[in-house]
């Protein structure tokens, strides 16, 4: 396997991490909606934590994307 093909395959494998992060983000919002519909009065107070959770899950997905870009263009 030559170097260019190995790079492209590596980038594709790293991008699988972005898909798993999508599951994580969906979990965060899904749990929020689940509990918000049970207790709507308390939902607005927790919106800040919702976005913190989203940012944390999204960051790890973006790190996977960064690794893919690093493999493709930098290494």
């Amino acid at each position, binding site marked *: 396997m030559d170097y260019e093909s190995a790079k492209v395959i590596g980038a594709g494998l790293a991008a699988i991490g972005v898909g798993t992060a999508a599951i994580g983000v969906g979990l965060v919002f899904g749990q929020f909606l689940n509990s918000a519909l049970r207790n709507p009065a308390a939902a607005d107070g927790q919106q*800040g934590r919702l*976005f*913190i959770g*989203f*940012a944390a899950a*999204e*960051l790890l997905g*973006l*790190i996977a*994307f*960064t690794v893919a870009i690093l493999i493709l263009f930098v290494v």
Partner: protein
Amino acid sequence: MAAESKIDPMHQFTVEPIVPLHIGGYDISFTNSSLWLLITLALIFGFVAMGMRRDLVPGRWQMAVEGLTGFIDDMVRVNIGPEGRKYMPFVFSLFAFILVSNLLGLLPLAIIPGLHPFTTTSHFSITGILAVMSFGLVLVIGFWRHGLHFFSLFIPHGTPKPMIPLIAAIEFISFMVRPFSLGLRLFVAMIAGHILMEVFGSFVVSGLNGGPLIAAVVSLPSLLLIIGILALELLVCAIQAYVFALLTTLYLNDAVNLH
């Protein structure tokens, strides 16, 4: 088959000098990045300046400015406490700058041939400096208020004695990753959105070049996807600005209220 032209999604991010300036070997040209930074500054300054009336019954512009500043004021007061209000100008500047920079990159300026909007926050140099400013402010405030006692931040209340070295090491690493994660999150969110739109845009053009059947199958769904992704990008711009400001506020809370 004709040779396929490669999609070049990175060309929209190139920084080109508008007024070249070199002093002693350093390139300090006035670039398109500088131009868009100045446009961001002018917009924020104009927006806030036009709303700085002191009417008891506010008009619409004053209401809008007060709404925005009140939103950040609430966030800072809820997360840091009543003494956190003195950090509100800094957090507001961060939030307003990131929000306007992100949104300016989505303007449909490419309708005019030759122009394209430029997202200043799509460069790690800009977002990295913003993150370093946040982190630096946290360090300065932490050491100013608490001196060396600031290091007790790394040992949460009630950790059992044998675990303290391990916990302190992990807490320290996660503390030091903060500026990097702040800058990287904003940077990659902006880059990813713009690359996605560029890729679908090139699909539209390539589909149109391929004849009527391919145009209907490829270009039309791509165009609809671009519209959907643009709406999502508007939301992501606002969310990323809010998340940056919120995390800065939380890190300031760590420094001010040490636990």
